[in-house]
């Protein structure tokens, strides 16, 4: 099962890249997109580690609910951070 280890390592590298992208953006919409990408990669990771119920909850909360709440908040405040 060594290729599964390579898959998990590649996904963790992608997770770190997406997280750094999310926290270094001045445009807050891009930060929301980065947080959503983190949620997508984390969901695949939970799925590979044989926890499909956690992956289901992560997909429901991270992709849909968090994105909608953050976009509504950005709409009511400012888009660009000083």
């Amino acid at each position: 099962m060594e290729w599964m280890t390579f898959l998990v390592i590649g996904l963790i590298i992608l997770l770190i890249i997406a997280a750094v992208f999310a926290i270094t953006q001045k445009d807050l919409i891009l930060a929301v997109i980065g947080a959503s990408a983190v949620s997508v990669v984390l969901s695949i990771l939970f799925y590979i580690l044989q926890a499909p119920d956690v992956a289901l909850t992560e997909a429901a909360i991270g992709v849909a609910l968090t994105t909608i709440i953050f976009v509504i908040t950005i709409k009511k405040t400012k888009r660009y951070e000083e």
Partner: protein
Amino acid sequence: MTIFYLIMIALAIIFAAARGLLGPTASDRIVALDSLTTITTAGLVLLAFFFQRYIYVDVSLVYGVLSFVGVLTLARYMEGGL
């Protein structure tokens, strides 16, 4: 043969993530996130086939519906509505 399919899907995830990381505008990154979630749905079905646990397909079913809602919210914000 399943490993070959998994390698192709990993390649597709890498290209979509590169577009999301390099994309000049926010719309490019939203489309990259949408394609990333679609590729992820296909990959989860393939992993369910690989693990021989057909109850795992439900995760990708919920995932397809909810990722559509998240990307729809972001697109509606870019249009100026919401």
